[in-house]
């Protein structure tokens, strides 16, 4: 057995070579966004104005909120296939009851959040894949939405409409909202001490369990948060559209997943970034706008949406080139 004297000569040589790439990876989402914004400015300079940004980005707020909800779920290695339909249901509840019978409306919404928490508990306790449970919930929310609102209609409460149409000084409201959301969530999950536990339970649940933390609790908390942000997403969406539709938020499921990934998140391992997710969601929103401004032939407009996603993500590849991209755990 050797114990080595003179260890002081050992310099810290294996410095963290990964750091620069990590930083680069972190600012990638912002680069994608900048790319899209530059495209918009090129095709339609008028759009880059207080009024223009308001118009282009206000429908991004519900997407941002849904993306954050999805991000919470992805953090603990689960996936929520039901978030879009949940947003629809929340929208229906908001448009029907929140105005006429606020108490009932609030009770239902709180109940929904409770159901989300319950979903987290069931997934943990029965050890079932979240994809199936949320797939089931997708149908449940859709059915409830159709039952609540058999034909489109209802009306958003005035206060909701007013909030979503706030005219903030200098900086358009959607930007203010996005920054606030990003800051709050970043602080909550990336900076708080319990946030570390929550993320850790996605990275290595065993380690968190062995340190004496309740994994049931972390899962429930994350689903609860997802429920809360899902509700916020539904409310903000209805505040903008003023009226509901049983299918209104359906598309948010895929959009939110795409947003998280675009923002640098990964499906497993608790590696997520709230700021990235917000930027990712905004990028997706603006990508549609860019296409619109590009005047593509109607046949290829749908395809162009795919193309733009590819271009934005391919930029990631260029930077990640160095490493074995698909294999993330090393």
């Amino acid at each position, binding site marked *: 057995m050797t114990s080595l004297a003179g260890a002081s000569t050992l310099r810290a040589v294996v410095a963290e070579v990964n750091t620069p790439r990590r930083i680069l990876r972190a600012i990638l989402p912002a680069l994608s966004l900048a790319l899209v914004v530059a495209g918009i400015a090129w095709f339609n300079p008028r759009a880059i104005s207080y009024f223009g940004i308001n118009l282009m980005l206000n429908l991004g707020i519900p997407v941002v909120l849904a993306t954050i909800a999805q991000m919470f779920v992805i953090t603990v290695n689960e996936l929520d296939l039901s978030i879009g339909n949940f947003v629809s249901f929340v929208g229906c509840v908001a448009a029907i009851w929140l105005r006429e019978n606020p108490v009932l409306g609030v009770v239902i919404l709180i109940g929904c959040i409770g159901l989300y928490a319950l979903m987290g508990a069931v997934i943990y306790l029965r050890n*079932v894949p979240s*994809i199936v449970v949320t797939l*089931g919930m997708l149908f449940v*929310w859709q*059915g409830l939405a159709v*039952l609540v609102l*058999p034909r489109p209609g209802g009306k958003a409460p005035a206060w909701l409409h007013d909030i979503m149409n706030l005219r903030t000084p200098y900086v358009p409201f959607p930007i203010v909202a996005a920054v606030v959301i990003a800051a709050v969530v970043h602080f909550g999950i990336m900076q708080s001490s319990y946030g570390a536990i929550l993320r850790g339970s996605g990275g290595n649940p065993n380690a968190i369990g062995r340190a004496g933390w309740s994994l049931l609790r972390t899962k429930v908390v994350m689903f609860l948060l997802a429920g809360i942000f899902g509700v916020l997403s539904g409310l903000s969406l209805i505040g903008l559209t003023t009226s509901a539709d049983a299918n209104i938020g359906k598309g948010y499921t895929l959009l939110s997943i795409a947003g998280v990934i675009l923002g640098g998140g990964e499906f497993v391992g608790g590696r997520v970034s709230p700021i990235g997710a917000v930027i990712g969601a905004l990028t997706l929103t603006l990508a549609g706008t860019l296409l619109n401004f590009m005047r593509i032939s109607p046949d290829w407009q749908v395809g162009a949406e795919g193309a733009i996603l590819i271009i934005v993500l391919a930029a990631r590849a260029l930077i990640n080139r160095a490493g074995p991209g698909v294999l993330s755990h090393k």
Partner: protein
Amino acid sequence: MNSLLRRLLSQPWVWSYLGALLVWLAAIVFTHGYGAGGMISAGLALAVFSVITGVAQMFVITLGPGNVDLSLPANIGLASAVAMKVMGGSDSLIALGLGAALVSGIGIGVGNYLLIWLLRIPPIIATLSASFIIQSIGISYGRGLQIKPPPGFAEFTTVQLAGVPLLAIGTVVLTLGFAVLLHRTIYGRSVLAIGQNPRAAWLAGIAVERTRCFTYLLSGALGGICGALLAGYFRGSSLDIGDEYLLASIALVVIGGTSVSGGKANVTGLWGAGLFLVLLLTMLNTFGVSAGIRYVVTGLVIIGVIVAAGGEKAR
């Protein structure tokens, strides 16, 4: 005996068969036994398509977290149009049409894989983007027109042997083949290994990229075949003919006992899950419940089955 039963119940796929049996019983209790056989043969016929897409999705999902083929519906839509257009209503061109659908599907698989490998785009986003592009190709190729299959092909997709659709028999044989492919070939083992740990698979000498590539091709090819068959069964191609198979294929895979975190797959369960979902629809349609109730019940039953089956052991 008792332990055999327990072993059986611990198999995740058993629950989907039990579920199928249960909803079928509920439906025939409602009709006092009327139409019991008809329900099964209709169920078998319809389950065929979800099972084919389910097999495709199963191989992809087994590759590990993040792997999923969202381009299946668009693939199916395009392939249905390609097949019908090439067949052009003529029985003599059936084989050519099927071949064209296969080629179209494989082409899509190649595209998907190139996006994933060359551009390092996460599969879920790559296939989603691809599906948008495929839709556009479909629109400009087929103009959304419904083209009819040749009579011989249409007949082939609906013909029954003693109440059992020929297509279902064929698909059972096909799925048996895929079970062998999965469990008894190097390719299948490679998929399972990569799904558990791609790095370890690489270090164990498995051709990781070749396997991944082949899997997306396989998924594309199955989508293409499914598109052609659907166009035959439903007597006409259409671009959205495959829309429902996105959720259906994923549902089938997970209800059928395949692990969504990869590395573990189950072919037997696909049929159970396929029959279960179709018969669930049959039951609810037989009850004549409204759309809202139908959705809610469908959702609750899916959750119920999976929760009753309980989870795989935590890793």
